[in-house]
């Protein structure tokens, strides 16, 4: 995990857990605002496309990604990224990427050591548990609908909207949760080697 967040060329010190937790809260508050905004605008009809795209960009810019190299969390895959990204700085795609994240030049940024691999596995397990619980809620809701146990039509949210909302949360969590758990739980980092 990096101690500095590079965002559009600005270096922000994120070595302390307090700062990282504040960032996580900010990110999920932003997602919550986006979900509410999307609901208010068209009940998640067309605006929900942003709820699929924005988490990917938050990953790429801030959190870190399985395949980007940008963001705080190092690549989860312990292998080199596509050579174009890392080694051909003149490639149009590489130039575009440099607008958002610094190119990967250090081997350590795309490989994880044994502790990092253990942490990666641990946070994925926690994220999996959360996602499983959402799937269980979806199943429970479907069951209640099928058995007429709970009539959601009378409420402000239709049944389909409820399922849709849960799947939106599921999508956001699937893309961002492992990284945010890591940012939340890792202790203060030493900036000086």
């Amino acid at each position: 995990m990096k101690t500095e967040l590079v965002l559009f060329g600005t270096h922000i010190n994120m070595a302390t857990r307090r700062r990282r937790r504040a960032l996580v809260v900010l990110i999920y508050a932003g997602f919550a605002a986006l979900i509410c905004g999307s609901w208010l605008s068209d009940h998640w009809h067309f605006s929900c496309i942003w709820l699929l795209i924005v988490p990917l960009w938050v990953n790429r810019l801030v959190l870190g990604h399985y395949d980007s190299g940008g963001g705080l969390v190092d690549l989860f895959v312990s292998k080199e990224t596509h050579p174009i990204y890392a080694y051909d700085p003149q490639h149009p795609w590489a130039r575009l990427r440099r607008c958002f994240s610094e190119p990967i030049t250090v081997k350590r940024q795309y490989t994880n050591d044994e502790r990092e691999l253990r942490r990666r596995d641990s946070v994925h397990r926690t994220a999996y548990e959360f996602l499983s619980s959402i799937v269980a809620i979806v199943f429970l809701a479907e069951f209640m609908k099928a058995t007429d146990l709970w009539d959601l039509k009378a409420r402000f949210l239709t049944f389909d909207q409820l399922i849709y909302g849960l799947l939106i949360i599921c999508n956001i969590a699937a893309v961002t949760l492992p990284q945010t758990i890591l940012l939340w739980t890792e202790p203060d980092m030493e900036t000086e080697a």
Partner: protein
Amino acid sequence: MNTTDQKAPGESGLYNRIAVLRAERGISRQQLADAMDVNYQTIGFLERGEYSPSLKLALSLGEYFALPVEAIFSKQPFQPLSQQVYRTRRIDGAAKADLDTEQSS
């Protein structure tokens, strides 16, 4: 009883001498991390006892410091190195005195 004033190990449940050995040899965390092919923060976690290394990493550390693994990691608190050296010298001195006595008699 903890006679060495060492703080209890962290999550790993292991005491270690990495920080002492590193300071003794004048190497930074980064240098040790590069030699072990790990992140320098992992060295910090090891030193604080917050991470128990794999057997491979423990053996690599032993190889690097030219010491057996049990001289670097222990489940019991370590005695200070100076105390151990003093005790070894005392034992050696006593053995030599016994030998001299035997020879003179």
